């Protein structure tokens, strides 16, 4: 069977070779990249602009951004027909192509986040390494952790006041450089779509900006929800051992959590407004200018995809959470519902761009319907099906769990 034939249903006049070639993994790619960029921007709000209220979530979102990072190119890898040749992009980059620079942008960004994290956790590495070094009767795990932490210090064991101050400065610089690079990383994903002149729905110079805004929205939302989940987990643990350990009390965690969430929600709302404004501007402009392709786009946007675009994306994914988060006296429960809906909205935006852009034929006289493969019956339907997408969604959490062992997000007394 031809690639794409399994999940494509053609209607009316389409060219014989047309199928939905870019499927669920290409929806996941901008979604995941957006989360990476958004999480980083959230952490930078504290590190660069010194928004103190976000201090607690800044460290968390930076580590989480790093955990998300390797998962951003993963969908591309699963999507490639020749995944083993992925390195060709680095070996012979053909720079007239928007995809060619992906490796370079991605590695640059990764290096910046890694450097920032190193400065942030250098003191922790040194302290852990020293503490474990002097410990007698180390377990195998502790020996491993000792060597790992020792290695991660990169030989810089100086944790004097002066050195730490320099670290702080470096963090600020890294976060400062990181913001434009993070925006570039994701605006660039938007450019990959926006520059396809053959596709009437994608081709708009607004695409990169729309992508950046919705990226920040989704990144903040995911950080909020993950933050809430981990805080609830800690609360649960604190309750269980409340009697034994008087360290941190349940009420403390609760007040910190609510405070952070209420503050972060304000930034989420700001970016959400920017994202919706741009998306609506694009839609209105297309309708008003009504060039040749509009006749077809109108039938897709207001007809075939009406439910996906207006009900799920704009209604459920934008309007409802907007109201939920705007009503004063935000509670954790409301924040959970709101952020989950925001994530749904951004995901549906990616879906409606990628799949919606292929819902109509290049002939402008036919349609293509996408049916997501759910039960995989071969490698292709796994990779480009529901389970492939779920694999992508869960992988950052596994990485976050491991990273958290090396770079603990919570329970650090000092904080930059």
């Amino acid at each position, binding site marked *: 069977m031809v690639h794409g034939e399994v999940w494509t249903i053609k209607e009316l006049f389409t*060219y014989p070779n047309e199928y939905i070639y870019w499927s669920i993994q290409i929806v996941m790619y901008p979604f995941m990249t957006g989360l990476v960029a958004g999480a980083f921007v959230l952490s930078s709000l504290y590190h660069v602009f010194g928004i103190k209220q976000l201090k607690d979530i800044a460290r968390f979102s930076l580590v989480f951004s790093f955990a998300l990072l390797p998962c951003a190119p993963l969908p591309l890898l699963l999507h490639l027909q020749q995944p083993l040749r992925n390195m060709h992009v680095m070996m012979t980059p053909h720079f007239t192509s928007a995809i060619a620079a992906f490796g370079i942008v991605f590695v640059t960004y990764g290096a910046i986040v890694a450097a920032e994290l190193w400065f942030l956790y250098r003191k922790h590495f040194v302290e852990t390494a020293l503490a474990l070094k002097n410990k007698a009767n180390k377990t195998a795990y502790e020996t491993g952790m000792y060597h790992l932490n020792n290695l991660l210090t990169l030989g810089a064991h100086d944790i004097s006041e002066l050195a730490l101050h320099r670290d702080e400065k470096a963090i600020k610089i890294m976060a400062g450089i990181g913001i434009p690079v993070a925006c570039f990383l994701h605006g660039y994903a938007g450019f990959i779509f926006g520059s396809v002149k053959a596709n009437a729905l994608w081709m708009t110079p607004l695409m990169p900006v729309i992508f950046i805004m919705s990226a920040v929205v989704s990144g903040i939302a995911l950080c909020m929800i993950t933050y809430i989940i981990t805080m609830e987990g800690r609360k649960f643990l604190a309750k269980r051992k409340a009697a034994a350990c008087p360290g941190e009390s349940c009420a403390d965690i609760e007040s910190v959590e609510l405070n952070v969430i209420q503050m972060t929600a304000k930034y989420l709302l700001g970016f959400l407004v920017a994202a919706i404004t741009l998306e609506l501007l694009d839609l209105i402009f297309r309708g008003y200018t009504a060039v040749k392709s509009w006749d077809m786009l109108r039938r897709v946007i207001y007809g075939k995809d009406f439910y996906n675009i207006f009900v799920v994306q704009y209604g459920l994914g934008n309007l409802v959470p907007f109201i939920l988060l705007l009503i004063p006296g935000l509670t954790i429960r409301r924040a959970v519902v709101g952020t989950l809906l925001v994530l749904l909205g951004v995901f549906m935006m990616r879906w409606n761009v990628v799949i919606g852009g292929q819902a109509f034929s290049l002939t402008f006289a036919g349609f293509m319907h996408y049916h997501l493969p759910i039960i995989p019956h071969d490698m292709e339907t796994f990779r480009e099906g529901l389970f492939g997408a779920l694999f992508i969604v869960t992988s950052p959490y596994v990485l976050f769990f491991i990273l958290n062992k090396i770079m603990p997000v919570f329970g650090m007394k000092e904080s930059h």
Partner: protein
Amino acid sequence: MITRRKLITNTLKGMAALSLPAAAFEILTPERLNAIIYNDTAKVRYVFLVDTNKCVGCGLCVKACKNENEIPYEANVTRTWVERYIITRDERHEVLEKVFADSPKGARDGFITGTIDLGHGNTYTPRKEDIDKAFFVPKLCNQCDNPACVQVCPVGATYQADDGVVLIDRKWCIGCGYCVMGCPYGVRFFHPQHHVADKCNFCYHRIKKGMKTACVEACPFGARLIGNYKDPDDAVTRIINTKRVGVLKEEFGTRPQVFYLGLSMEVR
């Protein structure tokens, strides 16, 4: 003693000193190098001419292409195909016209009935007396002068030869599908066996030996012709230069090099 400051300034100075003479060099593409060494500016530019007036929709070109280029016969992809357009008036013979178009299996088996394929298993058979006009349009890769597919390939696996034909390196293509999405004509697809991008290349293995393409050979009516646009005496060149020819979707700025005689506004 070498201080850190000294090391950095010296490194920068050294790099600046090195980059200055390096700027005097010019990086040559293989094509430019060829042109300089062999004084060989390309003498061939392959172009294609389709006379839609002569096409009867028999599909022999599609069959021949599939066999010649080893595109699995039953696979629903093809390097060339034929479209049928049927323009009807409704039963009350109002002015409004309806355009139907189809290309079932790329017209591999020819159009043998008057039933139109509407996709998804639906068909429609217009009454003969309602049909105002009907015609066939063969399609193939346009070997554009400004190919969108070559522009977007991230690894340079698809490229344009100096005779104008756009080729694909099957050993280097990563199968990202960007070229498939970038082509406004829908000529590209993934080869079902090689799992890389594939498309018509004017039967490059044949034309390089001075033969005609498989579809040109197979057409019993002379609706398809291939020629060399750089040869002013070439029959195809003469027709393109002297007759009223059209190209497909010129608004995309791709400068297609497949020319059509008798193109109608209904053609997509």
